[in-house]
């Protein structure tokens, strides 16, 4: 099941670079190159081989962990990606975590009194959250909290330039600082985290509110909930039942949502010059570094597959019906 998906992912990233009028040869050869030089470079890059053979070579390289070399950084793409992965995961963890903690209770409360005032307000707010461009929100936050109020540090990087980053242990300045007891670094890293995390939390909470409400409403109108109410169980017990039965679809939804949020997050990274995977990927796309783009897209897809797997495991653990098996 997962194997055809993985082959498909590698195929899509492979085709991504080949579909267009994109020409790495022209870029490498420069404007004064002769026809023979063009041919030489093509042969050197393996572009004169038939397409299926190129794909086989590319696939083989990917399996061996060779993603090629980025011409922007002149380093193996895999090294670039590995260095930045944890930086992005840290941001994603805080952002989506807080977004979920905000979104799920609001969605539940809205569902318990559908079309009440709370529901109306939360619905408009969540639709608004859907509509705000992430990068614009980030810029406005920088304007308000950095320029006007001067509460937040400038949106450049993950730690102040005045503070030397703590020794590399996990890659997260926050955790590394705590581990090495560098409180100045911890403080600076935390301050830099606040705005991007709020941005991501707002953007991720919107769909979670909407979906949690829909799921809880569905459960509320299910036979089980109706029976529980008809039997005269106290509202608190009914709510617990609804919570329990909503948990599985909500977790599944948040899991699938993470894929899209990774894209959103790269925009936040771009605005705050975060230096993570997302900013690396966007830079590669904008500047046409296609080996890096391939590696980046591949990493994102693999990440999604891993998240889906984790969701499956969690669902298996919390699903009431799976206790029987």
């Amino acid at each position, binding site marked *: 099941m997962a194997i055809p998906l993985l082959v498909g992912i590698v195929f899509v990233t492979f085709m991504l670079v080949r579909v267009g009028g994109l020409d790495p040869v022209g870029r490498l050869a420069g404007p004064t190159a002769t026809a023979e030089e063009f041919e030489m470079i093509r042969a050197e890059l393996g572009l004169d081989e038939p397409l299926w053979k190129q794909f086989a070579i590319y696939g083989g390289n990917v399996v061996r962990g060779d993603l090629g070399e980025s011409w922007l950084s002149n380093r193996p793409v895999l090294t670039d990606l590995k260095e930045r992965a944890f930086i992005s995961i840290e941001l994603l963890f805080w952002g989506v975590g807080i977004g979920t903690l905000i979104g799920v209770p609001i969605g539940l409360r809205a569902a318990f009194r559908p079309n009440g005032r709370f529901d109306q307000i939360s619905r408009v707010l969540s639709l608004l959250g859907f509509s705000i461009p992430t990068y614009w929100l980030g810029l406005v936050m920088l304007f308000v909290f950095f320029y006007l109020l001067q509460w937040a540090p400038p949106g450049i990087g993950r730690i102040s330039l005045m503070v030397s980053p703590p020794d590399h242990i996990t890659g997260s300045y926050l955790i590394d600082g705590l581990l090495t007891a560098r409180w100045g670094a911890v403080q600076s890293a935390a301050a830099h985290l606040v705005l991007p995390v709020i941005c991501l939390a707002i953007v991720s909470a919107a769909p979670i509110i909407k979906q949690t409400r829909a799921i809880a409403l569905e459960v509320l109108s299910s036979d089980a909930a109706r029976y529980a109410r008809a039997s005269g169980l106290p509202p608190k017990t009914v709510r617990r039942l609804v919570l329990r039965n909503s948990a599985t679809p909500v977790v599944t939804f948040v899991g699938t949502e993470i894929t899209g949020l990774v894209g959103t997050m790269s925009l936040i990274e771009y605005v705050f010059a975060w230096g993570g995977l997302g900013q690396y990927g966007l830079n590669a796309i*904008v500047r046409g570094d296609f080996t890096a783009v391939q590696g980046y897209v591949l990493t994102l897809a693999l990440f999604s597959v891993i998240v889906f797997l984790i969701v499956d495991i969690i669902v298996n653990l919390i699903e009431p019906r799976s206790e029987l098996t």
Partner: protein
Amino acid sequence: MAETVGDEFKRDRAAARPFSLKNRFIGIARVSPTLASGVIIILAFGFMAVFAHWLMPHDPVSAYPERVLKPPSAEHWFGTDGNGMDVFSRVIYGAKFGFGIAIPAVILAVAIGVPVGLVAGYRGGLLDEVLMRFFDGLRVFPSIILALAVVAATGQSLLNVVLVLGFLDSPVFARVVRSEVLSLRSSVFVESAKAAGNPTWRILFIHLLPNAIQGATAQAAVRAAWAVRISATLAFLGVGIQAPTPEWGAMIRQGAEFMVTGQWWVGIFPGIALIFLVFGLNLFGDGLQDLMDPRRRAVN
């Protein structure tokens, strides 16, 4: 809104008024304020897009070198940008891009997705299996990154942005239509159409399509909102549409550097316009979904 007998009656009375666009709209607004406010917002932007040339006080791309980065004033309501161009005029003109990209992109997505969904749902079997697997597989890629990478790889032009958004969005419509067709496939009217000797294309497009399209119409508004958002994001990153084109995303890109130096008007206003249009489309789509989904209505 809790529906009571009284509400029903009021609604009937509204429907009984002589037919006019205004009365019709009031009727809709009673049932779904979301839908109505969405319509108003969309119409306002539509008006802006169509009559931009009369509404703009200045030319959106002619620069006043002596008036660079001036704050909002009576002459320039939204101030001027780094090139000395009038931000207000540019925001109005930007509505043209919002609609100009979203409408063709959604039409393309419907034109691809709906037939695919019809055939896949009706035929079933291996074709259906392969298509659905492919669409599921595409889900592991964040849509914005895929759109960015494809536009960057296939060449940066407005046309390409439209084509790529249309293609990437077509699975949504295929999926909606397919699930409708699956539940309609063995219904009596399809069986009788088959028994009467209708060719397959006739069953698909004359008999099934009108019954299966409902879910797709609500999706169309939501997906238009998506298209507006993604195309602006592409422009913000400098992919597809380049400054000084008066497109909202491109304008936010121009305003980004001034945001931390205090010239907020360059980037804030196009962002607000963008939010409003996307918000209006989302309200409209959400309202439609509410009206059409009997299950969501039943709960209320």
